[in-house]
Every structure is written in structure tokens, then in C-alpha cells.
């Protein structure tokens, strides 16, 4: 068994083991063990990847190719580069943190963890796939558990939110499907066989007309998951209703599939289409960046604030991807990672606050710094990371994006870039608004005695906080790792 397939096999084993487990105690132990193994594997993968990269010059390493459906030339083809390795590690960390945060999941614990790990399986599979079909399969596997996760364990108008989220995402994947089919059916443009293999398609010169037609489909299909304006409305409602760990996983990991897919499929395979359409999507994504930030300013529900903030931050990812250069792309991937950790941390904290105070309305909360100092301090740190404070991951990502975006000298790109950059001020406004209203201020009488933070919560928080800081303090290693992997892709675009 190759190391990559293990990322699918281990979760599946965990799921099977979970079916045997009884009650909360066993389920969470099993889930934790499974996720720990995943995390260990992720770290090992990083190590192995770096070692392999030193001697291997291919675009992807650890490749494995098993024919699945011969008639369609569908393969179970896997392989990773620096980007997928980084995102896999992100996933492993967030999943483990999610398990810890859900340590006290009383209602149907087994099912909860099963759904959570099904989701994780899909995400892992998506990141390791280099076959479009396999990728799409994993994509759907990752998306669909959200329905049950939000529906069963959510709060508020959960049924509606779950339905809306699922339908919008599946609607997007419908669009995506057409795009993928279009790519597939044009993959013989140079006379070769039809293929789903990304690396092989990248060698093919897909006719311009086809690129023009299928790029927007593929882009939108993926980008809806990345909360592209104006298709982002599932995200606030969905996140507001979702249970903590689900919000974490969804915003932290699942939404990354969007950017990753755009990068790996839409941009890589349809570079001419990307260039042809980039102006349009730049408008959308730049709007999303500033719109999400401004939208967050007037929200009162913590989760809504964070959801709109995600719209803004992920808009930045798409924006960066559309800049079609190495620096911006590195920034996009870094932003994906950074946002993944950050927003997961946010949702974890929001979950803890909500669990203690039973409200997420920032006007009802106040003075939490005094009562639950640990959570509040981490919230401040997360907030600072979110507004791009140096020393945290957000900064390195955003700087790459801005510097990259600035490489375009024409007026249109300049304006879009400056609009996006200006979001960092708005971000500061809404982050500080939350901090000021919720954490600072006099302690409210109803929140005098809130339970202290527990060990599993601390573990979950630290799991997320450490990478945020590490990425922010010492970005060189990871950014070079990513940049190295981007090179073959950017060459495709330049050609």
C-alpha cells in the first residue's frame, strides 16, 4: 500500500471501527485514534515528500495509477506535490482539532464522528487525486455529509440551512460536472486518447473555443465552494447553523477544495480560458473580498461575522489565483492554509463561547476576557491573525497575494488590487468591533461564572494556533515548498 492511498484507507478503517464502537466514550476514542494516525501520516508525508523532492523532478511524486474504468480511461490516479501535501497536513490537523472540539458530542456521537470522517475521507481523496473523475467522486463525498452534519447536530434553522448549503454546493458541482466532461471530451485534441488524467491533459492543447466555454463552468463549479461572490450565501447560513466541529471542518478544509480545484483543474488545464475570462472573475472575486469584509461589519452573530470574513478571505484566494503569477499563487495557497487554520480556530472558539453563554450575539456578550481569559485571549490572537498581523500566517499569505497582484501594470488590475488591499482595513474594523464588544468591556452579570476551559478544548485550540504562528514566523520553508510546486503550473499558463 502506498502512502497516499493510506489517506483514504485509514479513514475508512476508522469509520468501520466507529460502527463497532458504542457510546460517546468509545466513539471519540476511536475517532481520535484514527485522526491521530492521520496526523502522524501527514507529518510523515511532509518528511517523505521533502526527501523525495530532492531526488525526483516530476510534477507529482508518489504517483500511483490503477486503471479503474478502462473504457472511459478512468484511473485511480494519485500523486502529490507541495501544495497537496500542505493542504493534506492542514486537513489532518483540523480534523483532529475537530474531534477534540466535539469531545462532548452527546447526541448520536458515533454517527457524528462517522460523518465527520467521511467528510475527511473525501477531502483527503480530493487532494491526492490527479484523475478528474476520481477527484470529482471525492469532491462529492466530501460535500454531502454536510447535510446530515448540519441537519442533525446543528442549531437554529438547521434544516433550511443544511438544505440550502447542500443544494447550492451540489448545484455548483453540477456545473462543474459539465466543465469536467468538457475537458475530458476535448482531451484528445492532439490526437491522443481521451483521458481524465490531469497531467496528461495538461500536455494537450485544448482548442481555444472549448477552453473559453468550459473555463467559466469549471471555475464557477469549484469557486462556489470557495464562496465566490455572488454564490456565497450558503456559507453564512450554513455556518451559523452548523455545529462547531462542522463549521471548523467546512470553513477550514472543505472550502479549500474550491480554491484548490480552481487552481488544479480550471487554471492548469484551461490556461487560455483562464486568461480570457480572468477580467470577469477578477471583478467578482475582488468584489467578494471587499463585499465580504463590509458585510461582516454590520453582522451581530459571531458565526455570521466569521462566515462573511471567510467570503472575504477566500475571495482573496480566488483573486490571487486569477492573477496568474507565481507570487500570487503562492499567496493563494498560503492564504488557503492560513484561512483554514484561522477560521477553524475561530469557529472552535465561537463554539466554546456559545457552549458557555448560549448566545452568539455580540451585543449580548461582553467582558469575556475577565471570565474566560484563555478563550478570549486566543480569540484576540486569532483576530489579529485574521486581520493580517505580521507574525501570523495571514500576513505572509496576503503579502504574497498583494505583491503578486501588483505585478500587473494595467489600470484594471491595479484598481482591483487596491480594492482588495483596502479590505485589510475593513477587516480590522470588524475584528476589533467583535473584540471590543464581546471580549472587552465590563463583565455582565449573567456571565459571571462560566465553566473553565477543558483540556480537550485547549488541545484543539493549540493544534490550530501553533501552525498559525509557525506559518507566520517562519514562512520561508513552506512558501518555497509551495513555490517550487507552482513552477510547472505557471509554465503552463505562460505558454
Amino acid at each position: 500500500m502506498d502512502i497516499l492511498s493510506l489517506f483514504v484507507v485509514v479513514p475508512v478503517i476508522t469509520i468501520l471501527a466507529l460502527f463497532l464502537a458504542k457510546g460517546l466514550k468509545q466513539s471519540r476514542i476511536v475517532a481520535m485514534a484514527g485522526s491521530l494516525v492521520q496526523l502522524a501520516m501527514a507529518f510523515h508525508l511532509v518528511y517523505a515528500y521533502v526527501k523525495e523532492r530532492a531526488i525526483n523532478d516530476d510534477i507529482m511524486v508518489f504517483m500511483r495509477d490503477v486503471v479503474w474504468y478502462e473504457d472511459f480511461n478512468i484511473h485511480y490516479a494519485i500523486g502529490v506535490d507541495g501544495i497537496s501535501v500542505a493542504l493534506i497536513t492542514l486537513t489532518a490537523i483540523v480534523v483532529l482539532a475537530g474531534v477534540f472540539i466535539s469531545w462532548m458530542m452527546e447526541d448520536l456521537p458515533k454517527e457524528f464522528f462517522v460523518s465527520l470522517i467521511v467528510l475527511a475521507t473525501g477531502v483527503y481523496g480530493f487532494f491526492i487525486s490527479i484523475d478528474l473523475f476520481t477527484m470529482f467522486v471525492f469532491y462529492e463525498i466530501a460535500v454531502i455529509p454536510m447535510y446530515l452534519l448540519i441537519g442533525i447536530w446543528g442549531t437554529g434553522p438547521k434544516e433550511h440551512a443544511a438544505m440550502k448549503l447542500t443544494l447550492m454546493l451540489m448545484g455548483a458541482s453540477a456545473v462543474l460536472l459539465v466543465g469536467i466532461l468538457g475537458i475530458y471530451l476535448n482531451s484528445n485534441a492532439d490526437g491522443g486518447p481521451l483521458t481524465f488524467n490531469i497531467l496528461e491533459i495538461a500536455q494537450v492543447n485544448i482548442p481555444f473555443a472549448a477552453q473559453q466555454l468550459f473555463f467559466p463552468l469549471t471555475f464557477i463549479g469549484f469557486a462556489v465552494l470557495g464562496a465566490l461572490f455572488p454564490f456565497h450565501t450558503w456559507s453564512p447560513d450554513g455556518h451559523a447553523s452548523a455545529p462547531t466541529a462542522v463549521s471548523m471542518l467546512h470553513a477550514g478544509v472543505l472550502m479549500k477544495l474550491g480554491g484548490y480545484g480552481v487552481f488544479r483543474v480550471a487554471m492548469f488545464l484551461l490556461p487560455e480560458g483562464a486568461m480570457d475570462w480572468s477580467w470577469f472573475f477578477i471583478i467578482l472575486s475582488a468584489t467578494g473580498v471587499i463585499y465580504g469584509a463590509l458585510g461582516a461589519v454590520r453582522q451581530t452573530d459571531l458565526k455570521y461575522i466569521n462566515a462573511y470574513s471567510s467570503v472575504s478571505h477566500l475571495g482573496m484566494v480566488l483573486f490571487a489565483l486569477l492573477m496568474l503569477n507565481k507570487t500570487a499563487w503562492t499567496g493563494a495557497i498560503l492564504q488557503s492554509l492560513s484561512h483554514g487554520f484561522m477560521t477553524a480556530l475561530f469557529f472552535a472558539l465561537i463554539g466554546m463561547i456559545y457552549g458557555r453563554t448560549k448566545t452568539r450575539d455580540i451585543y449580548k456578550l461582553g467582558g469575556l476576557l475577565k471570565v474566560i481569559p484563555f478563550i478570549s485571549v486566543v480569540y484576540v490572537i486569532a483576530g489579529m491573525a485574521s486581520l493580517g498581523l505580521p507574525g501570523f500566517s495571514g500576513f505572509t499569505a496576503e503579502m504574497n497575494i498583494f505583491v503578486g497582484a501588483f505585478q500587473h501594470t494595467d489600470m484594471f488590475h491595479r484598481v482591483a488590487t487596491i480594492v482588495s488591499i483596502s479590505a485589510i482595513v475593513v477587516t480590522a474594523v470588524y475584528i476589533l468591533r467583535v473584540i471590543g464588544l464581546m471580549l472587552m468591556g465590563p463583565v455582565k452579570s449573567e456571565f459571571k461564572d462560566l465553566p473553565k476551559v477543558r483540556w480537550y478544548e485547549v488541545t484543539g485550540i493549540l493544534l490550530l494556533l501553533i501552525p498559525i504562528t509557525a506559518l507566520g514566523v517562519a514562512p520561508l520553508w513552506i512558501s518555497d515548498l509551495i513555490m517550487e510546486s507552482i513552477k510547472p503550473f505557471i509554465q503552463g499558463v505562460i505558454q
Partner: protein
Amino acid sequence: MSFSSLLIMRHEMLLLVLILLLIAGEIFIPKHKKSSLVHLAIFLFGIHTAVGFLPADTETLFGGSFRTNDMIHLFKNILNVGVLILLLQSADWITDKLIGAEKGTEFFILLFSSLLGMYFMISAGDFLMFYIGLELSTLPVAALVAFDAGKRKSSEAGVKMILSAALASGISLFGISLLYAATGSIYFDVMAISMTSSSLSILGFVLFFAGLGFKISLAPFHFWTADVYEGAPIPVASFLSVISKGAAVFILLILMFTVMRPLIDAWQNMLYAIAILTMTIGNIFALRQKNMKRFLAYSSIAQAGFILLGLIAGTQLGASSIIYFVLIYIFSNLAVFGVVQAISNKTGLEHMDDYNGFYRTNPMLSLIMLLGLFSLAGIPPAAGFFGKFFLYTAAASEGYYLLVFLAVVNVTISLYYYLIVLRAMFIRTNDHPIPYFKNSLYMRLGLALTVIGILAIGMYSPIYEYIHSISSLLN
């Protein structure tokens, strides 16, 4: 007629023997032991199914009226497996409801006769055989629909079914007569050669197609479906939606790809419209259904629309993906019908709201339902995803991107109502949920087979590859 020609008609002969044995059983088995008849029937049919998988030759009989090859053989096997699962799932219902009313054997005989009709229909080499097979497959089902003799709904459904079916077959026959006029023959082989794209043959074709469209329940020939499903006993509705529809799709596939091939320009345009109409109407109507049977009726209408995607392509890829899809559809739909039936048998409840909180009392059944619905909705890793994907590929490879797009939009709509069922089972809670119940061995076996089918058909690619290789026999 030599012995070897009997072997060629192996399926038909065995099934006939089976029917006769059951008649004998009806006569000789004493009244208080009649329930053993169920075991006997299922056992015998199991053997029949197993024997069906033995390899067969490519032959024709009766001067070309009857023909068989590996593909037709496969069709029959697929139908057999479906019927077997259906029988396993309905065993309880038959034992409880029918044996007591001394109607058990009749049920089997009617069911098997209908299946026999389908065999002939699929194997038909001319329109006469086709027509006889069609009628033989339809009429017993009409009787079965009205089988709940004490229930008004059942009788009403029966009336609607038989009258609509009669009209459909009448129109279809009129069409066949026109085709006969246009080509001078009723033999498929001859017609395929002499068929031209004249107005007469197009008119004949459309009239004829309506008859099969009725069986597959394509819009606008679908209206009977929901009423009949609702009124019919669940096993019969299940049979209608799965086996009957499957058989009709198979023969339609054969006819379209061989006899009607010269009219391809005409029917591609027609199917384009019908596919969209069928999917959309099925979905739109399904959205508001609360009765499970009625809900599944519309769902099955929508599913039929997808089948047309492969048909439109008109390629081998299209053919193989249709066969594959029907196979998956049979398993998926049987899984869903099986659960509905299990619940209905124990509690008599068929309303969606009664399912609220079902997961918390009966997790296994709910999970099977989930799997079945996901397969119908086309969510991986359930097989339905693969079936649909290949259909899309088939259509898209002929350039029907817009159609594929509309189809996937429809899938999203369909996902909504499938999720509604899951919402009831998993998300909603109920003060008085359906209590936990244990299913009989037959039921469990029937459901287990569907689960295995749903999971294996998609993930295990040799099944598709076999179908693909065999579908070349069409041309």
C-alpha cells in the same frame, strides 16, 4: 423444434415450468400449508435465476421471431435478479396478506407471466412477438395492481392502468401498422434495411414510441404512473417501477439502435425534448409529494428522463451506459422500495411524516434508505453516481452539453426531495416514532442484496466493462 432450440429459450421454458409447478402446488398443497408455497416459489425462482447465468448461444427461432444473444441474455438476467430481490422483499407481504386470502399462487403466476412476457418482448425479432410480449407483460400487472381487491384505491388504480395501457397499446399498434405500411415487413431485420426517413415512417414511429414511452413513463405519457403506483400494493408498484420499466427500456434500446436507426435525426430531436420534459416534470411533481409510493413514482419518472440521455447519444457508449444505469436503477429503487415496504408491512404507514425520527429507532433500515436514495440522486460512492456520470459522458461526447447541463440541474432538484426523505428519517424527531422492528430473513436478504449491488456495481468496474463489451452486439 429440437431439444437444442428449447435450450435457446431456456429462460422462457424454465419460467413456464415454474408457473406450471406453482399451479400444481396450488392444487396439491393442502390449505394450511399454503405458506410453504412462498418458500417454494422463491426457491424455484432462485434456481431459475442462477441457471440463467449459464452461458448461452446466439440463435434465432421461429423464422426470426425469436432471437437471443449474450446481450438479450444479460437483459433477462438483470430482470431475473430484480424479480428475485423483489420476491424476497415481498415474501412477508405475500405470506401475511395473500396466502390467507388464497391469492398467493395467483400473485406468483401473474408476476411470472408478466416476466415471461418481458422475456418475449426483449427477445422479439418482429413486431408481432414484440406486441404479444408487451401485452403479456402489461395485462397481468394490471391485474396485480387491482390485487388489493378490498381497497377502492387499488381497484381504481387497476382501472386506470388497464384503460390507459389499452389506449397506449392501441395507439402503438396503429403506429406499427403504419410502419408496416412504410417498410412492408414486421421483421426487425428487414425493416431496418427498408426503413427510410419518410413522413409515414416518422408518424408510425412516433405513434409506436408512445406505447413504449407509456411503459417507461416518459412525459407526456407518464400521467398514469403516480396514480397507479399509489393505488397498487407496494410490491406491484415496485415491480412496475423497476422490472417493467427496465424491460421496456431494454427493448426500446434494441429497437432504437437497430430498426429505428435510419430515423435517428428525427428521434434525437424528439428525445431531446422528451428527456428535458420528463426530468423536469418528474422532479417538479415529486417535490411536493408526501406519500412515499407517489413520491417514488415521480422519482422514477425523473429517472426515466436520464435514461434518454444515453439513448440520444445513439452510440455504443450510450447503449452500455443505459444498460448499466438500468441495472443500478433496479438495485437502487429496490432498496428504497424495500425499506418502504418493510415499514409498510409492519406498520401500514406510507406517509413521509410518519418516518420522522426513524433513524433513532431503526438505524439499519434508515442507512439502507440513505444509500438507495443517494444512489438514485447520484451521489458517490453509491453506484447511481457512476451510472449517471456515464450517461452524461455518453450524451456530452455527442455534443449535447446543454442537455447534460439541464440534466445535472435536474439532479440537483431531485436531490432536494431525496434529502427531504432523509430529513424526515435522520433529522426530524418524533414523539411517537415507529418503534424498532425486526425484519424477516427474506427481507433482510433482499435488502442486503440491494446494498451489495449498490456498492459493488459502481466500485467494481468489470461489471461495466462486461456490459460495454456486450453492448456491441446491438450494431
